[in-house]
């Protein structure tokens, strides 16, 4: 009891650590708090990784199987049957590189767009910055991307033995930048969708196939140069993903059509979507438990 009084007299009156109110300021994004929970972020990533491979024999090797088979499919359908050129890049490398970066975007979007509904159980019981979950998704997918990227590198090494020149150099420093852009767009769109689906689930139905359709509106199975002179090429160019994919191929193989302007345009769109996403997300996270 004596100790108590000492403790309490130190703390000044009317100085609150936390005030809970119905409405927060629009720009109250609480990113500082997310930083404080960085340990949790990493533990979620670890959890995802461990939990995914418990009781499997091949473990992370499963991530390699999907791009290999998809590459074979694309080779047959778009290469052999539809005869779409691949910009002087060996078709296997062309498709696999596209699939690798697309997979990362798609899985970021798919997993983050589920944030509120899929985690309602845990969100309803304990508070932590909700943004930790979609961020951990983006990081978890990074692991998967890393494995698939290693496969791509192995394929590229194989081709370079057979005489195909690989453009390894300082430009590879762009790879992390491009990946971050993909992550940003996937995260931004994902948290917007997850915020909108807490009350009305209609959008969830849409997301699944919209992502698939979006792949065809992005130069994954064809090079942008293939569309030159076609009337709809413009629409493909408006897609903020297009410059990223094209620069990705340019960095890896020295083939791709993009300019500083188109990349800047992508960056702008991503920043806007990400910002909008954070605004909506931080508004929704306060009361979504009542409607989810």
């Amino acid at each position, binding site marked *: 009891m004596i100790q108590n009084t000492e*403790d309490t007299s130190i703390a000044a009156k009317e100085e609150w650590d*936390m*005030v*809970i109110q119905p409405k927060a300021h629009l720009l109250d994004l609480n990113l500082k708090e997310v930083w404080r929970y960085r340990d949790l972020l990493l*533990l979620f990533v670890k959890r995802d990784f461990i939990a995914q491979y418990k009781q499997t024999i091949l473990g992370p090797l499963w991530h390699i199987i999907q791009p290999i088979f998809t590459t074979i499919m694309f080779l047959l359908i778009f290469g052999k049957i539809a005869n779409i050129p691949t910009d002087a890049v060996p078709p296997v490398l062309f498709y696999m590189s596209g699939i690798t970066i697309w997979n990362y975007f798609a899985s970021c979007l798919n997993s983050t767009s589920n944030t509120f509904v899929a985690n309602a159980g845990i969100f*309803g019981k304990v508070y932590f910055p909700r943004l930790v979950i979609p961020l951990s998704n983006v990081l978890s997918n990074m692991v998967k991307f890393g494995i698939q990227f290693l496969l791509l590198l192995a394929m590229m090494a194989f081709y370079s033995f057979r005489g195909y020149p690989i453009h390894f150099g300082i430009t590879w420093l762009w790879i992390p930048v491009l990946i971050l852009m993909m992550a940003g767009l996937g995260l931004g769109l994902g948290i917007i969708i997850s915020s909108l689906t807490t009350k009305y689930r209609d959008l969830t139905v849409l997301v699944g196939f919209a992502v698939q359709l979006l792949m065809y509106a992005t130069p994954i199975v064809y090079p942008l140069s293939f569309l030159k002179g076609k009337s709809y090429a413009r629409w493909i160019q408006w897609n903020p993903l297009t410059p990223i994919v094209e620069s990705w191929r340019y960095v890896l193989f020295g083939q791709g059509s993009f300019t500083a302007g188109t990349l800047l345009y992508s960056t702008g769109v991503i920043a806007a979507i990400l910002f909008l996403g954070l605004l909506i997300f931080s508004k929704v996270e306060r009361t979504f438990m009542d409607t989810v």
Partner: protein
Amino acid sequence: MSNTVIKVENLSKQYRLGNVGTGSFAHDINRTWYRLLGKEDPYLKIGEENDRSVKGSSDYIWALKNINFEVKQGEVLGIIGRNGAGKSTLLKLLSRTTSPTSGSIKIKGRVASLLEVGTGFHPELTGRENIFLNGAILGMSKREIKSKFDEIVDFSGVERYIDTPVKRYSSGMHVRLAFGVAAHLDPEILIVDEVLAVGDAEFQKKALGKMQDVSTQGGRTVLFVSHNIVSIKKLCNKGMYLVNGLVHHAGEIEDTIDAYQQSIVFSKSHKSAYYAEESNEKDIQILAIKILDEAGNEKGIFDVFDPVLVEFEMIIKKEDASFITPILLVEKDGVELFWSFASDLEPGILDSLPMGRHKFKVQLPSPLKKGVYNIHGNIGKPGVGNIDVAYDAVQFKVDELSFNPANASFAAGRGGVIPAILNWEKIG
């Protein structure tokens, strides 16, 4: 001088009943429209008191309405109330899992909530991995968890299983581990909601002890929600009694429990007589259970020394109804006090009940300690099972009405569940 660590002002929370669906979309549009016009949300004006047993006219209800209270450092506040009174909503608001509709909560210090222990436990991860994950979810840093890891394992007593996935744990071990993590959080404010429902008696005792340590030695503040009046009484020094989203009583824990029990006895669903309609489907049935005083009148409140009588009426509609006996289960403040079988002193009753109506009268032990008593009626075959059950049949209250000898074992102030006036023989 004590210091306020939680200050709640005009706190309200509104919920919409029924489905969130097409109707709510129309309301959302309406709301946006009002906001654009700079008017107040039209749905905040409506809304009713949250009485779940009455069908209301509005789809909106106030789970909490204009709640005001303060909690000072080191206080252990017990929040009581019947189901749906708003206890859990209040804890949800305090632990920030949802936002209030209006009003504010101001908090000093770190808050940790045990709304349901084991939150975020992943079945595939081992105990060790889950300690880290769960600790981080509850707001601890990796370093903090590391420094307390051994203590947590020790407290939960699952050392042998620490590298086994928790899906292989028994539910008791699950709770032990989870509570172990939570109990070592060292928050300034701890919010606890009915966590002790699982786990064996030894562990419950350990958990309650830990909570007591946290408040008395650590000088920390605890908010505790439970239906178990006994543990509330034991742990808390302040109480708050919620009724339909409003604060009915707040103050010292004893007074609050009194207010709670008072209203329980007189509320609609509690009664001193129980009648069942004769059913064609039942061959053997309880017809009535009544609480009576010595004179044979129905009564709800008794003095400590008053004899309390229970009348038990039953009907048997078939010939070979052998080996059955009427049974009473008496509870005090939610704790089982005793079971009494009519066959205890009259074993002959087991095969001597013919067809027809039977009426029994039984006097409960006297004196009784102050508190609320609940009686369940039962007709059963001893060792086999129940034939007919009258759950929560009748209730009565014992109060210290006449005189209160300070030193006697039946005084409420001494604690304990039953009065035991024992003979202390001096033998040396």
